[in-house]
């Protein structure tokens, strides 16, 4: 496998690759892909300190609305901690593929909850099933407390059906738009009646609120439960196609290729095993086609995590990490709506492109991007003064660990640095311009490369 292909695999299955890690990797494709899966077999759920909820029960809340309000405020603050913990996990985890898949599913089974206990439970459910059995995954999600709230499943009762979840289950989670009738939605909503959760977020089936009547769904009739409905949906091959298409556009290329997606659907339909599907993708020759390399616009999280994996940083203030996500347009745990982030070109507008181009220098180099020799009128002492002045004006307090970067890129010749930091084609004019840059230090050159439109691609 070439270096570009290796980096391609690691950009899609994770957040890029440090050249220092190269040596420890196996050489052939099969072993490389195997290693990705084996390293992701363990599951590390996120666990933040939630002791503020200790001893609290539904009764205490009902009797004391003021206390309940205080807890709500606390819970919302704790969401920032959960967000931070997730970001750290993305940076540090060795379960690379599991974390990447978790991020993918978070924008598939989209959900949002201000109750931090439920929110944490939800993101860990994603983690547990990320590479597992899709059927079990969907069934678990249908019973997840945060989801029961978000899509009104708990308000879905016999004689008072709420169709919200049933509709999204088919439209967004399994089949895609236009693959069902309004009648199918009505009937399947009835099957999910009685779904609820207890105070701690465990699933509760309220049998009295369940509609035990006969439902007719996709031409079948019976006293269906929610699980039955999911089984019937998965019998439809369209479900395997729909998920394959989404996986393809996220992991391979935002422009779909019908032939490859059909091949994926064949594999997935056999057993709905997510690991098998992903193995098929990463083992396929077409995955490494030149057309797919560097074809994808990094999501803000991919961009940010990739950057701090290249140049490790320490966030001195937790709130900075939230602020960075916000200005980039993707805050974990805070999706725009149930359809999730649109992705691809949707990430980029006039403001976000400039933020992305400028952010590496602001985060890592006191907002300085140096120019080629002779073009800057800043003398060394003046530059120092400028840097000092800039530092007090910076919006974030972040310590960049350039020593670790130097260590990781020790064996890379500075003239080849761009091959390790950029994926895919570089614009010809830009490539020419890069050649004229005075490459006096890897650090400066690294910042220059990170400040390019090309760095937005993976």
């Amino acid at each position, binding site marked *: 496998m070439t270096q570009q292909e290796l980096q391609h695999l690691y950009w899609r299955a994770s957040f890029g690759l440090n050249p220092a890690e190269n040596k420890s990797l196996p050489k052939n494709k099969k072993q490389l892909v195997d290693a990705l899966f084996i390293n992701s077999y363990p599951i590390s759920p996120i666990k933040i300190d939630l002791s503020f909820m200790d001893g609290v029960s539904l009764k205490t809340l009902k009797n004391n*609305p003021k206390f309940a309000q205080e807890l709500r405020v606390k819970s919302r603050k704790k969401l920032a901690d959960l967000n931070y913990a997730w970001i750290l996990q993305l940076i540090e985890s060795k379960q690379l593929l599991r974390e990447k898949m978790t991020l993918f599913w978070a924008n598939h089974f989209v959900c949002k909850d201000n109750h931090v206990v439920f929110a944490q439970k939800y993101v860990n459910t994603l983690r547990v099933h990320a590479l597992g059995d899709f059927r079990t995954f969907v069934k678990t999600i249908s019973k997840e407390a945060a989801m029961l709230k978000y899509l009104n499943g708990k308000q879905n009762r016999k004689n008072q059906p709420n169709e919200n979840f049933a509709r999204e289950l088919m439209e967004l989670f399994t089949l895609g738009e236009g693959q069902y009738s309004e009648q199918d939605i009505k009937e399947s909503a009835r099957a999910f009646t009685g779904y609820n959760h207890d105070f701690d977020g465990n699933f509760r089936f309220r049998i009295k609120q369940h509609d035990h009547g006969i439902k007719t769904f996709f031409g079948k009739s019976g006293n269906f439960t929610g699980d039955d409905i999911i089984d019937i949906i998965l019998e439809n091959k369209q479900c395997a196609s729909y998920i394959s298409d989404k996986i393809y556009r996220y992991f391979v290329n935002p422009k779909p290729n019908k032939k490859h997606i059909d091949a994926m659907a064949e594999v997935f339909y056999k057993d709905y095993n997510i690991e098998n599907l992903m193995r098929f993708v990463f083992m396929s020759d077409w995955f490494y086609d030149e057309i797919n390399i560097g074809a994808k616009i990094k999501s803000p999280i991919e961009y940010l995590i990739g950057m701090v994996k290249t140049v490790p940083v320490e966030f001195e203030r937790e709130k900075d990490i939230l602020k960075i996500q916000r200005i980039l347009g993707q805050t974990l745990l805070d999706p725009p709506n149930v359809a999730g982030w649109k992705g691809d070109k949707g990430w980029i507008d006039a403001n976000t492109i400039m933020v992305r181009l400028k952010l590496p220098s602001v985060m890592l180099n006191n907002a300085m991007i140096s120019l080629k020799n002779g073009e800057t009128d800043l003398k060394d002492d003046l530059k120092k003064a400028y840097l000092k002045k800039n530092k007090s004006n910076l919006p974030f307090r972040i310590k960049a660990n350039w020593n670790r970067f130097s260590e990781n890129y020790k064996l890379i010749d500075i003239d080849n640095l761009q091959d390790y930091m950029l994926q895919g084609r570089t614009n010809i004019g830009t490539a020419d311009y890069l050649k004229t840059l005075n490459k006096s230090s890897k650090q400066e050159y690294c910042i220059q490369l990170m400040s390019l439109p090309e760095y937005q691609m993976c």
Partner: protein
Amino acid sequence: MDRRKFIKNSALASSLFFVPNFIKAFEAVATEQLGYKRLVIVQLAGGNDGLNTIIPYNNDFYFKARPQLAITKNVIKLSDDLGFHPSLSPLRPLFDKGELSIINNVGYPNPVRSHFRSMDIWQTASGADEYLQSGWLGRFLDQHGKKPYNALEMDEQLSLAMKGEHFNGIATYDYKMLYKTTKDPYFKNIINHYNDTHLSEHNLGYLYQTMIEAKSSAKYIYENTKVATSQESYPNNGFAKQLKNVAQFINSGLDTKVFYTSLSGFDTHAGQNNKQTKLLSQYAESVFAFVKDLKQNDTFKDTLILTFSEFGRRVKQNAANGTDHGSANNVFVIGKDLKQAGFYNNLASLSDLDNNGDLKYSVDFRSVYATILSNWMNVSAKGIIPTEQKTMNFI
């Protein structure tokens, strides 16, 4: 002043000095020819309690439903039944002059009581059961926009409302910062060297294209915004700053048709009165200053201000002296020469509520949008508002 700065400033001063008069005259004509209507959106995020904003101060049901929360003192009476929350007193002159139209009971069928979802519905002009990925103002831009700066949002993030299928407005809380960023000499060099036309069909080409657009838009906004236009003093809060910037852009004659502003914190589940009093004051004082500013510059006649919230709140108060998520709500339209100023319609019945205990809507918010598009922006609502709507007659 150091020498560099001095040279820079004096160079700037002298270039202004030497602008021939005929060019200035030409500029004036050019601005006039662009004579178009501007729309300013004010979003009250969190779900403003409409019943304590426009108060049915003679209605027994109101007092019964809100024993602790009903506003009993200093209601500013506007009609026999309805009056302003005391905080809205700065808007009284507008109401009296016929420059404010209050549309009651605005909502949509099968109301959704989730903030996120309901805000999406308002921003995309969708129905309760459909998900659109583009906003109504974005689709307006798709059809009628030429430059990204035709629509500006005073925030770091572009709202869904401002995202079209092919065209996005610009979000910037600080246009000077955006300009400063685009002026980094490194980026200038990158743009100058960029030379591959074939790439424009690919994602990378799109990035370059957006970068170039950002640079030219930021430059346009920065260079065409006259800093000293505002004589008006604004209150000291973030929302006022947004409006002040909008006034600056409008009074400078920027070719921007839509401005988007937002004030948040209206989700008053507990201890509502203090919070809402503060927020409504911020809103009314800022809008008052804004309108005055526009009037002084003779631009009010070309500006329409629409204020909305994603939903109203439950008629009955809750145990924490707050209110829970409701449905239909009032919408404010501010402008000169309104066809129907004052109260556009009566408040819906407080005794005939929906199953949830919320007001029933009588005006679809999409017909408010459609009316603004056709009667104010002079464009067809077709392709912008997905469902056909009746045109109203407030403008």
